């Protein structure tokens, strides 16, 4: 098949994907320019991109590296709180804190990843179940433990008021678009590059990969760090946009479900799957919480959806669409055609 499609079509495919990403970016960038008062549209655009960033970031470790993380909200919240604290206490302009938030989250991920990913077995997944809860408790009790007033426990912190530097919502809008483009290019690089090839090898057969000299644990830790970097940066964006942070909005159960659900529904280990997942998840969640008064029904439906996807189409939406044509298959499915 590769011989038939050849190098030329691979390049077309690459250029096509870059074009799709840039068109999406430019289209969203035009929203505040064309209509300054389009607040609802800007809100929808922000959250669509934001969820797409989070889903793609999760996919790097959950899909490509094959290590499920149930606690990715920890990295998201870590980034959000780093920005929140630096902004409110050190009075640093929030946009400058974004890379710091990402790096702190990545460092935290390395701390979690090194002991758990060097071992074989389900240790990483088990540890991540604890990471989310432990990080939430840490931020709830932060002030108590250190005897300071930084996170204000369950009450949360308000940002952007008083003597804090302000940030224009339009700037946050553009920063989100930039991060989305960055995360998509990173995913494409992982899928096409040598680093991603190593991850695929580890995911498919750890013994064989190790025998051929692939540094299995190191690759997975790096994948986790990149993933956490983007999650933490997304947390920083959330802090800038909502200008309010509390433990339940960052570490809540619905966040943990969403982070797993989107990439799985969209297609594990694919470039576009997480984006599909985010496009599907955000409007559904938005409408469901508005229409359905019972807070448990959406999560119940997501559980059923998760079971159904895993049983019948483990590659999710990308798997369904990828059955179409040869080009669809190359565009949408992972390298080996399996998760």
């Amino acid at each position, binding site marked *: 098949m590769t011989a038939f499609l050849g190098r030329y079509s691979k390049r077309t495919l690459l250029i096509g994907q870059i074009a799709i990403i840039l068109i999406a970016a430019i289209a969203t960038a035009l929203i505040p320019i064309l209509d300054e008062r389009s607040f609802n549209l800007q809100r929808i655009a922000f959250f669509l991109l934001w969820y797409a960033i989070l889903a793609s970031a999760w996919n790097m470790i*959950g899909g490509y590296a*094959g*290590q*499920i993380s*149930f606690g990715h909200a920890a990295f998201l919240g870590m980034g959000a709180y780093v920005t929140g604290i630096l902004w409110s206490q050190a009075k640093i302009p929030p946009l400058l804190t974004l890379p710091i938030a990402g790096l702190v989250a990545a460092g935290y991920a390395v701390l*979690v990843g090194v*002991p*758990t990913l060097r*071992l074989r*077995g*389900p*240790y990483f*997944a*088990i*540890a991540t*179940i*604890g*990471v989310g*809860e*432990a990080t939430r*408790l*840490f931020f*709830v*009790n932060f002030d*108590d433990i250190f005897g300071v007033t930084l996170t204000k426990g369950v009450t949360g912190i308000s940002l952007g008021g008083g003597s804090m530097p302000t940030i224009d919502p339009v700037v946050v809008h553009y920063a989100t678009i930039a991060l989305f483009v960055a995360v998509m290019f990173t995913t494409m690089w992982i899928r096409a590059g040598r680093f991603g090839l190593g991850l695929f090898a580890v*995911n498919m057969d750890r013994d064989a990969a190790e025998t051929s000299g692939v540094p299995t644990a190191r690759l997975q830790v790096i994948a986790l760090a990149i993933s956490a970097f983007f999650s933490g940066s997304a947390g920083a964006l959330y802090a800038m946009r909502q200008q309010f942070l509390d433990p339940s909005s960052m570490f809540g*159960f619905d966040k943990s*479900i969403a982070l*797993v659900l989107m990439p*799985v529904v969209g297609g*594990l280990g694919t470039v576009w799957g997480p984006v599909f997942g985010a496009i599907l998840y955000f409007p559904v969640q938005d409408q469901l919480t508005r229409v359905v008064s*019972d*807070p*448990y*029904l959406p*999560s*119940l439906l*997501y*559980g*059923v*959806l*998760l*079971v159904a996807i*895993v*049983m019948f189409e*483990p590659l999710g939406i990308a798997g369904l669409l990828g059955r179409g044509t040869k080009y669809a298959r190359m565009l949408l499915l992972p390298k080996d055609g399996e*998760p």
Partner: protein
Amino acid sequence: MRLVEALISALLVAGLYATMSYGLALIYGVMKIINLANAGVMMLGAFLTFFLWQSFGLDPLVSVFVVAPLAFGVGALIEAVFVRRVLNEKPVISLLLLFGILLVMQQGASFAFHGGDVRSVRPAYVQEVVHLGDVTLAWTRLAVFASGVVILVGLELFLRRTFLGRAIRALAQDRDACRLAGIDVRRVSMLAFGLGSALAGAAGSLLTLVFAFDPVTPFSVLQLKSFTIIVLGGLESIPGVAAAAFVLAAAENLTVTLTKPQLENLVSFVLLVVVLVVMPGGLASIIRRRRFA
């Protein structure tokens, strides 16, 4: 004196911790998957116990004998309908599947039983205490501890003395060799999953005596604790689980006595990370006990 009291009270909690973790170790041993739905079965067990007590005044210690067989059925069904089909896939898939099943159970129960309502089972003896010298012990905790010990002994005897128990241990060692030896691998897997779930159901019954509960609250935290326990115990070792349950309970009790009570739930995570760094093989590798397998 406070230290002695803390250790004794840890021992009593350990009975419950161990009961809820045996099933996880058993299922991991046989199928090499982490049963995330464990907390869901535990929750169903607790609710069934509550309804039995409310409707018929059945004591939780008696309803264990009703709940455990039903939980066995639920577990066997989950294995036969869902888990069996993804057993040959990558571990990612079974984790996601069981996470989905847990979500369905938890959120379904929240939907059906009006989520936020907290329930508790309070039989007549719930306030009674036993005095041992200077130490005062709640009768309910003693009862839960005794049940935990009985279940441990029964499980060990079953795994060592019966054919099915030996088949389960054999399966944990080498699946292919079992096939060659003529063991019905599928059937034994199903029974092991059922047995593991029955233990979770029993733990659900017992915990109604100690905790108030709604469909989510104590169970998510207990799930995390049981993961710490099986990792500390060496993933597949039944005696390892019993020892690890005590270590965790003691660490928690000491933390609560010596520092802040809010940190109790942080202990299990810190312990988990420490174990993974210092001795990934768990207690089983340290005390060189034979695995149950």
